[in-house]
């Protein structure tokens, strides 16, 4: 039974990271209808920048994360300005290919600058804690708490501020938002900034328990796609709930089914879902 709760706790940790990544992905999809395959590269960049800030400038963990948020957010904005903005009216195959191009570039960039090695990120919160028979490092608890805080802040921003509300308005109806005077360019840039920031937070939080390497974004982004399809492309609550569901499923699956194949669970789930519902689990049916 202890193992069960231990795995539940681990699931919550992984799920928090998944949710944050999926949130960024779903926001961009909701606003611009782009499946941003380069999102995993933003995540990877987040990990590296935090690590570099800590190692070369000697910044404290949380300060390093802050720098990372700003930098990766700006990389996101650049992506929108330099690339996606020019492909607004192109056939749908084009933005996917452009995203792949940026993904390849950023990965090669990381490879060139930081090398192919798996790097460790030290955390000031490495203490081991034991509560109710579950043993974990403080870092894991911090991941869970920080993720909730970030989500809550995002929620407040989207619901209570004018800027946030324009994002929501545009995700619901682009043409309409344009009519009522929302600056769609600004909103697109803002959305990409948030998306990059969320990726940076997720990567910086999870790096101390995982590792930092050029391909660290691969699996995470693939799983984030699975999550937003489960939760409904563009749906914010869907991304959060989906993230936790996948986190639990994986961590329990690894214990009770097979740890070799735990990464496959998400994809089999997705293949099953799309097989039964080709337009995703919560697609709006009917009218096109």
């Amino acid at each position, binding site marked *: 039974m202890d193992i069960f709760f231990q795995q539940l706790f681990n699931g919550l940790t992984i799920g928090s990271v998944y949710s944050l990544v999926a949130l960024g992905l779903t926001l961009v999809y909701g606003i611009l*209808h782009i*499946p941003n395959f380069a999102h995993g590269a933003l995540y990877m960049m987040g990990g590296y920048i935090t690590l570099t800030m800590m190692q070369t400038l000697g910044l404290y963990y949380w300060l390093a994360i802050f720098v990372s948020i700003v930098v990766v957010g700006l990389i996101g904005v650049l992506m929108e300005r330099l*690339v996606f903005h*020019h*492909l607004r009216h*192109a*056939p*749908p*195959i*084009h933005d*996917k*290919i*452009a995203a*792949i*191009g*940026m*993904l*390849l*570039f*950023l*990965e*090669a*960039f990381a*490879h*060139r600058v930081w090398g*192919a090695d798996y790097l460790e990120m030290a955390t000031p919160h490495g203490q081991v804690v034991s509560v109710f028979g579950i043993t974990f490092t403080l870092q894991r608890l911090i991941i869970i708490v920080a993720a909730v805080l970030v989500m809550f802040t995002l929620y407040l921003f989207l619901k209570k501020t004018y800027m946030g509300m324009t994002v929501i308005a545009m995700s619901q109806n682009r043409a309409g938002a344009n009519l009522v005077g929302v600056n769609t360019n600004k909103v697109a840039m803002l959305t990409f900034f948030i998306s990059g920031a969320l990726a940076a937070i997720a990567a910086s939080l999870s790096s101390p328990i995982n590792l930092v390497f050029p391909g660290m974004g*691969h699996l995470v982004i*693939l799983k984030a*796609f*699975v999550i937003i*399809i489960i939760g409904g*492309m563009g749906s914010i609550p869907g991304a959060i709930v989906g993230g936790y569901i996948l986190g639990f499923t994986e961590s329990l699956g690894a214990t009770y089914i097979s740890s*070799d*194949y735990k*990464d*496959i669970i998400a*994809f*089999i789930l*997705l*293949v099953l879902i*799309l*097989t039964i519902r*080709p*337009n*995703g689990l919560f697609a709006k049916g009917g009218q096109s």
Partner: protein
Amino acid sequence: MSRLLLNKRFALSGLLLLVLVLPLITSNAYMIRILILTFIWTIAVYGLNLLAGYTGYLSLAHAGFFALGAYTLAILTVTVGLSYWLAFILTLVFTSIVGALIGMIALRTREHFFAIYTLCVGYIIYLIIYNWEGMTGGVRGFIGIPSPGSIGPLEFNSQISNYYLVLFFLVLTIVVIYRIVHSLQGRTFMAIRNSEDLAKTIGISTTKNKLIAFILSTFFAGLAGALFASFTRFIGPEISNITMTFDFLVYLLIGGIGTLSGPVIGTFIIVWISQELQFLQDYRMLVFGPILVILIIFAPRGISGFIIDWNLKRKAKKQQIESMKDMENNQEVKEG
């Protein structure tokens, strides 16, 4: 027009002659090896082109099917112990059947969902190859795959004979693709790419034709994979990795997606540049990534498409000038 066609014929025959005599004039084994690999990639890229370029469905599982072909051949020849050519044919049949099954499901989805779905299918294939050690050798890879068996007096155990064998399959691929694209079947694919709704209303079964395109694309991926396995004789799980699909995509995009010469042009140019930029190796995507992005924004149909469009424009201009001349002549006649 006829002169252009003649020029094209001439250029093509010259090119074919060149690749035919190349092994006779060079003894550079390394260069021959690179050429063989290039031929193999090109076959795979043609498969991708038929689906993504002509039918409009971006499949990101292409490396998965390439690896499926390679591993199926390896398992059939080594583990099962079949004779080479029987295993070869069974490999093609098997890859096509798997392609048909996956295609039937994958093609129910569209656009983004299709890309994500196939991305996941590709990853599942990778994870299975990686984890199923008993069958695939896992991360250590699969060794001891035989060279192509002899056909009558023809033997394929030297590098040069392999060169001609792979070249034969490449030419065959190009001929088959050329014939498909320039037929009613090809027009059907392109109608689907243009607008599925319109295609349906003019009586085209999009379900059936998309599936045909998908199976063809997996068939050529499998063919390339089988040739790859028996040429390198050692395969590892990385050939099914998504980065391999991205490599294929780069070849296709730079050469020209949805054009007949695109796969050849793109693959040769990129492999050649990669050879020249050896020092870049793992960082080659530092160059190719941005090229991909710039191309898709400014020249979405790659080098080949750029030349075709340029030619069309020139022709249109010529026609305009000629028709203007005609008008002038007519006027002169009238006035005279």
